[in-house]
């Protein structure tokens, strides 16, 4: 008989950031069950904000230790709390906090972005009644927290099992949240279903990859797999196929071509604050995992896998950019833009240098801040029903509806323009610093051609960003079109989020040094 069971030691301190968020999610569920309805939103919001802020603080508290030691492997390898993991957890918690602000905002109309009752049939009397009674689907907050918790585990996961579970924990809430938009609910539900089916499809591939890797190494720990690459002989096919299938799952999450087809639909259909959250945070989490796999497992396979990744990076940049040019829906355009950005980040990933890691981290932070801000702005620009005293309804997402926005709401439009410029990579914005970082990492990694492609593509990408700016600032609002678009006043939260985005975008563009230094310290993965 094997010796008595020894309970594993659980290093709570190192799991604190994740634990805070997940426990807050569970508490949120309990609040749903027991708190009176009118108090729920306030309580949920408080819990969520406190939790994310607490996670940021916890990350900060752990930082000194990790910087000195280079990180620790805890839970027998299930979790690896090293520099990149911790930084990404911090970034995720921070962006989660900002996203939550947008998510919580009800604007002056007193209605948030979510259906008053997600179970109501769209267009039914019940839905109308629920709306009039001011119901709110406050489950959104715990769901967001759960997703965030999954995301925070993702880059730190040290074995494929934890990675898989985290993948699902981050995905399932997002599938749900995508389907909960208040307006255009059919669209939203479709988005949810598409996201779900394709997401589950991708995770099945991920899983089969895991199985093959397990078959290869006899373990699902990344460290063991990496070690096995040098000892096990004759099964390279298993390893290669395993890694590739694994990457399919992860690349799906970041929306890389050819696994991107869900992105525009889902981004368009999902409630805009969720789109922002998804666009920023999912990408960050997934790239965290990709970094770990590419840097820990792939190196022996460099010549098999890397060319594929190069091709994917190029394709992603090109397709994202080219297709974005013809979009007429602002959310779709931002979706394709996010695909293109995934390509840029991949350029940093495939650099396979330490500066590659830090550049990816920086890019993700910069992109995340701008993205959440941009979608926050989208959520404020609304259509107005025709006729006198028309009610403010859904978001005005058709680009033509944005014409002349700069003249009527200069500050808002200027902020949006700033985000667009950051996406375009104009100097003195965070986007430029990020692009510079990834491209220089690529050049340093000997992939000058990739950097050149990236540069050319970003030049092309300027076109559609500039187009929106042209619309906002240089086009007079057409007589009637101008009247059907308005900007609702935020309750305050969104304003804060946008302001944070603007400040972050400028600061990271003008004075990126402190952050860059910090990331340079962090750019070391423990196998």
């Amino acid at each position: 008989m094997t010796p008595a069971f020894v309970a594993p030691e659980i290093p709570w301190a190192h799991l604190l950031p994740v634990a805070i968020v997940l426990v807050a999610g569970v508490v949120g569920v309990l609040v749903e069950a027991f708190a009176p309805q009118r108090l729920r939103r306030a309580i949920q919001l408080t819990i969520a904000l406190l939790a994310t802020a607490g996670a940021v603080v916890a990350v900060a508290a752990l930082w000194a230790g990790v910087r000195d030691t280079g990180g620790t492997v805890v839970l027998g390898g299930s979790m690896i709390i090293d520099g990149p993991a911790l930084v990404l957890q911090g970034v995720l918690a921070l962006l989660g906090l900002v996203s939550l602000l947008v998510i919580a905002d009800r604007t002056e109309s007193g209605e948030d972005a979510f259906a008053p009752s997600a179970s109501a049939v769209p267009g039914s009397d019940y839905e109308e009644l629920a709306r009039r009674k001011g119901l709110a689907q406050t489950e959104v907050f715990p769901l967001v927290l759960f997703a965030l918790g999954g995301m925070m585990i993702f880059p730190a996961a040290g074995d494929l099992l934890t990675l898989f579970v985290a993948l699902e924990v981050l995905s399932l809430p997002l599938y749900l949240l995508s389907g909960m938009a208040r307006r255009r609910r059919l669209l939203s539900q479709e988005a949810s279903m598409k996201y779900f089916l394709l997401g589950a499809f991708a995770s099945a591939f991920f899983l089969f990859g895991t199985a093959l890797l397990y078959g290869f190494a006899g373990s699902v720990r990344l460290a063991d797999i990496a070690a096995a690459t040098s000892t096990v002989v004759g099964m390279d096919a298993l390893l290669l196929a395993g890694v590739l299938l694994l990457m399919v799952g992860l690349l799906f999450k970041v929306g890389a071509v050819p696994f991107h087809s869900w992105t525009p639909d889902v981004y368009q259909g999902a409630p805009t604050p969720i789109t922002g959250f998804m666009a920023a945070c999912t990408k960050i989490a997934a790239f965290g995992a990709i970094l770990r796999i590419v840097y820990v497992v792939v190196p022996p396979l460099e010549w098999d896998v890397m060319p594929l990744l190069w091709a994917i990076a190029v394709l992603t940049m090109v397709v994202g950019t080219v297709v974005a040019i013809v979009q007429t829906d602002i959310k779709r355009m931002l979706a394709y833009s996010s695909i293109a950005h995934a390509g840029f980040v991949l350029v940093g990933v495939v650099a396979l240098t330490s500066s590659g890691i830090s550049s990816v981290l920086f890019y993700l932070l910069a992109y995340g801040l701008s993205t959440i801000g941009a979608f926050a702005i989208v959520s404020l620009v609304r259509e107005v029903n025709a006729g006198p005293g028309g009610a403010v309804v859904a978001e005005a997402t058709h680009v033509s509806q944005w014409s002349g926005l700069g003249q009527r709401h200069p500050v808002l439009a200027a902020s949006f323009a700033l985000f667009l410029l950051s996406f375009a990579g104009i100097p003195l914005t965070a986007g430029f610093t990020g692009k510079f970082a990834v491209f220089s990492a690529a050049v340093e990694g000997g992939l000058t051609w990739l950097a050149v492609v990236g540069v050319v593509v970003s030049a092309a990408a300027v076109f559609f960003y500039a187009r929106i700016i042209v619309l906002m600032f240089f086009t007079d609002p057409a007589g009637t079109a101008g009247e059907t678009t308005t900007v609702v006043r935020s309750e305050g939260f969104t304003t804060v989020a946008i302001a944070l985005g603007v400040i972050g975008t400028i600061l990271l563009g003008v004075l990126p040094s402190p952050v860059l230094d910090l990331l340079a310290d962090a750019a070391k993965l423990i196998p």
Partner: protein
Amino acid sequence: MLNDQSFPWLTTLIVVPLLGAGLVWALPGAARRHARTVAVAVSLLTLVLAVVAALGFDTAASATHQLEEQVSWIPAFGVSYALGVDGVGLALVLLSVLLVPLVLLAAWREHPDAVATGGERIRHYVALVLVLEAFMVAVFAARDVFLFYVLFEAMLIPVYFMIGAFGGLQRRYAAVKFLLFSLAGGLIMLAGVIALYLHGPGGPEGFLVENLVGLDLPVTTERLLFLAFFLAFAIKAPMWPVHTWLPDAAEQAPAGTSVLLVGVLDKVGTFGMLTLCLPLFPEASRWAAPVIIVLAVVSILYGALLAIGQEDLMRLIAYTSVSHFGFIVLGIFAFSSVSIQGASLYMVNHGLSTGALFLLAGFLVARRGTARIADYGGLQKVTPVLAGTFLVAGLSALSLPGLSTFVSEFLVLVGTFTTNKPAAIVATLGVVLAALYVLLTYQKVFTGPVRDDLATTPDLSTREKWVVGPLIAAMLVLGFYPAPALDLVRAPADVTLEQVGVTDAAPAHGSADATTSTTDDGSDQ
């Protein structure tokens, strides 16, 4: 304090307009109508400060960077905030700060709808001009390649808004075209910048120009990098065949914007060629020079020929600029001290003359509401002052001796002649063509019978006179007494030449009278 080199003069020159712009934007509702006044005041203050700073400049050591400042900016990328100007840089900085108040003054009545919207739009316009001024000063003063690049790109944004929001009917098209051309070039340069850094010494100061000069680059790499940089600069200094954005931009932009765009902004291109391309990639520069010279000559002729055929005053001036930029590039790549001096000087002079032309054309447009040449005629009699100043500016553009442009153009041609006779000879044709387009235009617009609808056209107002006056004065002064300017550019030219690795057989050490000192060297290399 005036001569205190440690005082951050250049930063001051950057910060003051920026603060001014911020102030203009932050003006409370009631005070908004004074936005222009505030802006002009700020720009004048900047001008004064610039003059004061220039007084502290040691002309004797104009080849070295002075008024230096250096702070580590992004050590992770090897970027520092390093400023400093040599003679050429100083001249261009001065040009910039001189033109800005004039442009602001000229824009006084730029927008008929300014009243309707409570000065809202003009407020944005002047603020953007001030932002642009800060960037212009900074870009000419940047001693760090990264900083230079950042400013080079960042400048586009205010100009983009100035064209796109305040221009003519086709302004959106023009603005986007401008932005895309410039960004495309700029981003390719970015790749070069990155690669250059990685070949350099690296470290937290790895982007300083002085640390990057004299690198032992592999030949292919050097040539590729050169091309990346040169392309960006060529687009910026509109060289044939990548000039096509300029006529559109100039036509659609308000006159003031065109002044800054063509007068100053495009100089960043030639300035970049002079201060970055040549020193950083000497071998590649020599390798590419023949082709570039051909392109430059083509630019000269092409610009001039097209200018003759233009029906739109603004486009015409834009094409003349293409021609003039051809001269500048020609001067730079002719690799003789004289030609480089000429090119350096040309940058300043062209700013003055073309600036004046654009401003005057703008006044015309403001009066008549059209820029079509055919809509004018016989204005000489109605508005003599306007006609006179236009003539002077035009003559400056065709390099009439006695006006500032003449000196520089002559230096360029002479310098080129010493190294590349055919190019010089063909380029000379450009001078003839210039006479054609200037005089023809003058004839069409100002001479002949007065058209009825123009009979009541008012002559230049006091404000407008104040706008044009300084420019005319500068042209005349520099035309007759170019010595101070030449002093500024001579030494840098020699240094540049040295960096390129071309020994000038007989370096010109002429005095103010450039003609005598430069005609006698004709040895080829």
